């Protein structure tokens, strides 16, 4: 535990980003802006965001191949592509991968990249913790997937109901990997939630009050609160499961008097907020994209915000709708049935506000817009089937059938994933300086949309016809043949669509060389993230941005006359920063987040195989924490703070927030003390205005 009172590093033109110094007096600090090391040790929220996104896409391919295996197996009755055992592993890992290793990190990618930019900040509150979250998530994901090679993947379904997930009924190590792997990924989410909430609360640009934040920032904030409170619940559940399996505890031991429903309650108390964790970021993205391509502001901004918050709150009161048939008793069923239904209200408000945003607009159907509108359409279908589950008597027919599978793919794939694909197309130029090819994008969208409906549409029928989920095969005379075949064909159409998306990335990248740059604002957009160069320079913004209203950037480009006519008053290029600023404080790269994250899977392997490995892992973690705590967040040897005012015309706050320096908090995670990267200097109101108003 040490404190760092030295001011952080600052840059001058042409200077190396970071100057070498040493950590622990032994290792020199990582340096450099290029090369793999600059990515491995980076603490830049944008690079971290990009890596989150890349990892999520990689896992999408893995989870998608798993899905294709499922569909191959089910294409015809009595299929024999996979054995029973393999099938169980594949569908479990498909669910786990898609939920925890695809959609969540994809949301984290957008959150990391965009949150600081949208609120006009320079980085997140704790850049090193941020890097730690990334590596920790990746460690958890890789750890989980190594189970394939170590005697079998988890095979208890993604919600791992006890006692089937216990040692007696699931004797392979698979469920140990599940419990420990999700635990590691959970740490990543929790740390990241604390980090991002602090960022939003504390680092907004001057004048950026909460109710001037873009809807995406709002939704991400709500999601981080959901994570903050939901992760501990699954943490406990997973601990209980691990202790049962590894140390012989009795939490789910029915013989000892335990009740298996305990697991279900804990899992779904987490699990239902989790599904809103999956969807709200996509809702946020759609709320950014639709206005831009409708050329109208978002309709009913306060309602969009409040309905998001309402969904966040109500999401805590509905978990037992996953347990309507598990014997919780008629009163509980009735209560949770009603609470579930009413979640349709705030969600409906969102849908209708998007439609109202489009109403009277000048809609441009770029790929990003197509995906967003597609997501509205597809999510609605999933939401409506959700309401038909909520009426609990009907759910006793539907639960654990393909009707449910249809529901959640429509909301998760049709809502979350499509929303995020929209985000990829929308912010790609911002992150990489070139657009994704529109023609390929549109073709890809239509292929995906058709494939998606071919795959999951028939599942409604299958489910109502009585096809159970998680079955390895079905009899030829069950009447499921036709629609299963259709669904399997559809899955490969989806695969083609996804493949086209990857192809598009390659093609667009190649074409981008030699093409003119896209400029800061290729879509004539509204958020602050467009007010700086593309790709975003390391320091984000050249100067403070003082925000005086919602959609500040847009209003600097356009004037609404008294007659309501919109006229241009400036080009984006004139308003946006060109990224040429120098002398900006930036956090320095660090080894330690990677080191600490590396220790976690070691501990986990050790718990499964050999406690010595756990010991080594613990040492790695301790060593990493030690290095971390004694490493100043910014390079200490570089400069005095006196030059800082001259070099930083916007009067950046320096290390003011650094009062406490590094300190430990809770579970041995050190809190960074490097809080100085915000542009926000004075309070939001009354403070001097950096950019004068005429």
């Amino acid at each position, binding site marked *: 535990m040490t404190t760092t009172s030295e001011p952080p590093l600052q840059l001058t033109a042409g200077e190396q980003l970071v100057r070498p110094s040493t950590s622990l007096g032994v290792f020199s600090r990582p340096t450099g802006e290029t090369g793999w090391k600059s990515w491995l040790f980076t603490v830049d929220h944008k690079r971290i965001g990009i890596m989150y996104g890349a990892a999520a896409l990689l896992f999408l391919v893995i989870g998608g191949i798993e899905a294709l295996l499922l569909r191959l197996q089910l294409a015809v009755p009595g299929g024999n592509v996979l054995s029973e055992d393999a099938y169980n592993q594949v569908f479990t890992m498909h669910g786990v991968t898609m939920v925890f290793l695809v959609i969540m990190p994809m949301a984290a990618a957008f959150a990391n990249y965009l949150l600081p930019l949208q609120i006009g900040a320079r980085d997140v509150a704790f850049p090193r913790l941020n890097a730690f979250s990334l590596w920790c998530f990746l460690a958890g994901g890789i750890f989980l997937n190594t189970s394939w090679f170590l005697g079998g993947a988890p095979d208890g379904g993604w919600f791992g109901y006890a006692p089937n997930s216990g040692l007696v009924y699931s004797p392979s190590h698979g469920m140990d990997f599940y419990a420990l792997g999700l635990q590691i990924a959970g740490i990543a989410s929790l740390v990241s939630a604390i980090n991002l909430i602090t960022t939003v609360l504390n680092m907004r640009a001057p004048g950026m009050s*909460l*109710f001037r934040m873009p809807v995406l920032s709002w939704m991400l904030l709500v999601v981080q609160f959901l994570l903050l409170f939901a992760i501990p*619940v699954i943490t406990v559940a997973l601990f209980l499961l691990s202790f049962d399996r590894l140390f012989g505890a009795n939490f789910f031991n029915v013989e000892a008097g335990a009740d298996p429903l305990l697991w279900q309650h804990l899992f779904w108390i987490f699990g239902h907020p989790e599904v809103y964790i999956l969807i709200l970021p996509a809702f946020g993205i759609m709320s950014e994209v639709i206005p831009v391509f409708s050329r109208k502001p978002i309709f009913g901004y306060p309602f969009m915000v409040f309905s998001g918050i309402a969904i966040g709150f109500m999401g805590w009161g509905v978990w037992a709708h996953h347990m309507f048939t598990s014997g919780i008793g008629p009163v509980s069923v009735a209560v949770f049935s009603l609470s579930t239904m009413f979640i349709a209200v705030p969600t409906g408000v969102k849908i209708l506000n998007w439609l109202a945003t489009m109403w009277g607009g000048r809609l441009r159907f770029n790929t990003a817009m197509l995906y967003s509108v597609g997501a509205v359409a597809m999510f609605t279908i999933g939401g409506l089937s959700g309401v038909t589950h909520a009426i609990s008597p009907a759910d006793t027919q539907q639960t654990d059938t393909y009707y449910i599978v249809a529901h959640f793919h429509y909301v998760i794939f049709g809502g979350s994933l499509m929303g995020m694909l929209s985000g990829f197309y929308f912010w790609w130029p911002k992150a990489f300086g070139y657009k994704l090819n529109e023609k390929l994008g549109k073709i890809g969208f239509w292929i995906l949309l058709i494939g998606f409906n071919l795959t999951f549409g028939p599942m409604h029928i299958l489910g109502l016809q009585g096809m159970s989920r998680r079955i390895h095969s079905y009899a030829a005379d069950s009447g499921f043949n036709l629609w299963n075949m259709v669904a399997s064909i559809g899955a490969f159409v989806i695969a083609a669509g996804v493949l086209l998306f990857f192809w598009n990335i390659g093609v667009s990248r190649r074409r981008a060389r030699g093409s003119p740059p896209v400029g800061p604002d290729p879509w004539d957009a509204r958020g602050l993230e467009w007010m700086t160069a593309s790709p975003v320079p390391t320091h984000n913004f050249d100067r403070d941005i003082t925000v005086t209203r919602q959609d500040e950037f847009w209003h600097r480009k356009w004037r609404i006359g008294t007659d309501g006519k919109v006229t241009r008053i400036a080009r984006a290029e004139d308003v946006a920063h060109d990224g040429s600023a120098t002398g900006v404080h930036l956090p320095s790269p660090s080894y330690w987040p990677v080191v600490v994250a590396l220790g976690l899977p070691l501990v986990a392997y050790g718990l499964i195989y050999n406690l010595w490995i756990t010991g080594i892992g613990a040492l790695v973690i301790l060593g990493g924490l030690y290095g971390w705590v004694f490493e100043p967040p910014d390079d200490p040897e570089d400069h005095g703070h006196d030059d800082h005012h001259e070099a930083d015309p916007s009067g950046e706050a320096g290390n003011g927030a650094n009062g406490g320096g590094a300190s430990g908090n809770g579970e041995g995670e050190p809190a960074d003390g490097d809080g100085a990267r915000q542009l926000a200097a004075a309070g*939001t109101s009354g403070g001097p205005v950096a950019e004068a108003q005429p």
Partner: protein
Amino acid sequence: MTQTPSAPEALEEAAPDAAADHGDEHEHPSDRQYVKIALILGALTALEVFTYFESVHNLGDAAIYVVLIVLMILKFIYVVAWFMHLKFDSVLFRRVFVAGIVLALGVYLVMLTAFRIWGV
């Protein structure tokens, strides 16, 4: 459904004028006050432990539960308000913490109720 103060208000209020009611301006409680609180806490604990001994058992379990819960909440509040400074600190902290407590109480009590562990 658990209800906590609506988030945006909680956050917004904390934002611009938080400075007004927190930080260096306010008076820290004096050490004397801290000791006083500690004495109260000690006394409450003693009361609690007292219920364990036979003399009050004729009150019946229900009464003992009520007394214990009240005492526990009092102790909790004393520590949180004074030692953790929540009484004097930014409302933001209070709201985050209360949100956690209320949420936890809400979901876990509902869960235990669904299990009917209260014997009703």
